[in-house]
């Protein structure tokens, strides 16, 4: 899984800490989300997408294989 969180976060000038605070998670969770190592719940994916003003499918890119 790849994500565009880092790219969109930079566009909105948000730090990992600020994004974490906005969606109510730890900063480490945002770190692992950006690395594509953490598979978030639908609720967290929705919250992050809402803060970054994008759609969930734009934010998370899944490899087909």
């Amino acid at each position: 899984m790849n994500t565009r969180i880092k790219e969109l976060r930079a566009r909105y000038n948000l730090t990992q800490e600020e994004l974490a605070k906005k969606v109510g998670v730890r900063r480490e969770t945002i770190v692992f989300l950006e690395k594509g190592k953490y598979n978030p719940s639908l609720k967290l994916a929705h919250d992050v997408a809402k803060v970054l003003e994008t759609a969930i499918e734009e934010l998370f890119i899944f490899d087909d294989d």
Partner: protein
Amino acid sequence: MKFRIDKDILRFSGIAVLLILAGILMTSLLPGSTYPGIGSVLIIMGVIAIIIAIITAARPKEDLIQDERSKRIKETAGYHAFLILLVTMSLVQLIAMFGRLNLDYRDVSTNLFLVGIWSWIILKWYYNQRGDAR
């Protein structure tokens, strides 16, 4: 290093100090052979509690919130630690059944408890390093 001082930290530190004081009282003032033993355990518990309070106070409060990732890691680590404990107990039972070692559950219960606790701690650390528990 900046230390956070809030109600929870102060309460926890207070309990730790009380434990140490109770321990000192038991080891030095009360007669008999039982109290010094309990007293030293209380002192050790108090010291551990103070170390935990210092470590907690050094971390930002945001780091301590339970989010979905930490909850998932804790639950999965607990489930896997329980499975490890069951497998260990089965192995102990098998060894006892075949009589290679004359084991009694009362003798190994403390070790089994340690296996469970340490499995949980190590698995929690491992899943936290990996990022996810899936």
